[in-house]
């Protein structure tokens, strides 16, 4: 059994936001427009947060890409009254769009605030529509959506592997964000495979997870920035 996980090396992240764009493109994330974004309704399955410390000339800027953490003990799942969200056997926390009735309790109980609601019917610019991904459901208004580690790509990789009667190779199933990242800061793979890159990196001394104290057991690991000056 696979157990999908992600490692994001903050030392390598340049804050270019290519992951954010690739994610939108891959997952048919609707365009809300500027007005909607101002109301906080922009959807970022992969979100890039920047933190500015200090003032000119002593400025330090840090970036942190935030997808869904795919918790092993997800707080969002147990609160849904209609079981519209679940953790699949491979550890991906997924949303069942046709089942969702838009209660939004999963949104309010997510400590990472990475679940997004469709406040309006989805819309895209006309030119953009030709490029919509046929593999991904276009969410309608009134339901919740979230990052699912590009589950469609995992499925495709599984089908290929099954035809060839083997397991998925490390690096064969890769979400759009990881594939795009120009500085190769995002790794994705099977945490159950001790030889996979993610499983080795997740045990690194630099590895940490967000809000571990909540006991949510996220499967997205971050690698701390190196302390260059300390040598």
């Amino acid at each position, binding site marked *: 059994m696979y157990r999908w996980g992600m490692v994001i090396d903050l030392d390598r992240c340049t804050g270019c936001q290519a992951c954010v764009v690739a994610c939108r493109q891959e997952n048919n994330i609707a365009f809300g427009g500027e007005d909607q974004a101002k*109301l*906080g309704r922009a959807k970022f399955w992969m979100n890039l947060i920047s933190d500015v410390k200090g003032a000119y000339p002593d400025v330090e800027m840090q970036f942190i890409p935030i997808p869904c953490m795919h918790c092993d003990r997800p*707080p969002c799942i*147990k*609160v849904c*009254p209609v079981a519209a969200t679940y953790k699949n056997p491979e550890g991906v926390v997924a949303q069942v769009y046709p089942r969702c009735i838009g209660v939004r309790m999963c*949104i309010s109980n997510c400590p990472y605030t990475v679940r997004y609601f469709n406040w*309006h019917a989805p819309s895209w610019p006309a030119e953009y529509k030709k490029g919509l991904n046929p593999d991904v459901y276009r969410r309608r208004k*009134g339901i919740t959506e979230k990052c699912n580690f590009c589950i469609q790509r995992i499925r495709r990789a599984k089908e290929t592997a099954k035809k060839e009667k083997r397991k998925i190779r490390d690096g064969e199933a890769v979400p759009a964000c990881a594939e795009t990242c120009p500085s190769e800061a995002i790794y994705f793979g099977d945490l159950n495979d001790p030889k996979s890159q993610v499983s080795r990196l997740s045990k690194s001394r630099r590895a940490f997870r967000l*809000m571990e104290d909540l006991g949510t057991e996220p499967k997205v690991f971050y690698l701390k920035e190196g302390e260059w000056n300390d040598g």
Partner: protein
Amino acid sequence: MTDREAIAQKHSRILAPLTRMGWPFLITAGLLSAIFLWSFFAFGWQYVWGLGVTGMGHPVSWALYLVNFVFFIGISHAGTLISAILRITHAGWRTPVTRAAEVVTVFALAAGPTNILFDLGRSIRFHWVAIHAQFKSPLLWDFTCIMTYFVTCVLFLYVLMIPDIALLRDRFPRRRWFYGLLSLGWIGTERQERILKRASTFLCIAVIPIAVSVHTVVSWVFGMQTQPMWHSTIFGPYFVAGAIYSGIAAIILVAAILRKVYRLEEYLQPIHFNNLGLLLLTMALLWFYFTLAEYLTTFYGGSTDELAVFWVKLTGKYSPMFWLMVLFCFIIPFPILAMKRTRTILGTSIVSISVLIGMWLERYLIIIPTLSQPRLPYGRGSYMPSWVEWSMMAGLSAGFVLAIVLFSKFFPVISIWEMEKEEKEKTSNSK
């Protein structure tokens, strides 16, 4: 028959609203209906264009609808709970206020959960909560408790009204088909009396734990979530106390208005308002105690996430609302209720309005600040209700008042048979 005629004559004041229909009634009902119908338009608008027409967003994804949900369920608490407790403890002064209290309960309980319907992304799939029930969700517990409470309260109101409906059946021949059906053939035999007594005792005892469970579970919708200033063990009792507090205020206000409009001075006397005022005073102190305990514990604990919400309430963006809440929920009510001189009908009515506003603010301050200050600080946001949300709130409140007004035109707002019974007992005691 003549005996009934005599009773009806004696209580003509109570029956008067059922026979008269003047301009004041038509104007009030018309105005309320207009506001009520307007909310249907607003809901249609929201249904077609999506929840985007509200002011909600990310991270404040629950807002005014949830506030009104908790507020109305809170109001529903006083009625039946108070009525049941007063019956069980044989509080002699209760009789003229119980019916009004039960009516407030039933309609508030109809209004409260309607807000959840407005709040759903796909309202038309509301029944899926029952069909695809997921038992770990506090919302399902809510659904179960509220439905149980609603059924019990409707039964409670109805069963205790049967003898009065029978009286109306004989009094209004033109509405005989309606009252005749509802009176279930009540003629006041000894057997019927016995069944009624047993049924009402059973309902009285059953309704108390159900009422407590309802608001506890409503609080758990928030308390079970691990969000700062929601995840608190006192939320259950805090919400129940707050609910009874706002509920008693609603009863006092309704009783005062009914007294004035229908000239029920001889039934609803200053003593009733004095006693209800004392109950309200108890709840005011309890509310203050709970609020102090909740905020002091949070502050002293000093956890960063909790303090972010704490300070935004006390000194930040929500501080005007917070201090208004303290003013309306404690500073105004306490001195007025504490002094016998001011614990009059006017005094308790003013306090009731203040408490209702204050408790609405409390619900708002429990829900919105927490959502606006999530743990990851980047996601912080604010919220301003849109015209749709205000319309729904106005429509719902108008509908609630309209339902009470219409009820008072078809059924007596004071329990006639219980007044009679009480009088009989008094005279037999004095003999």
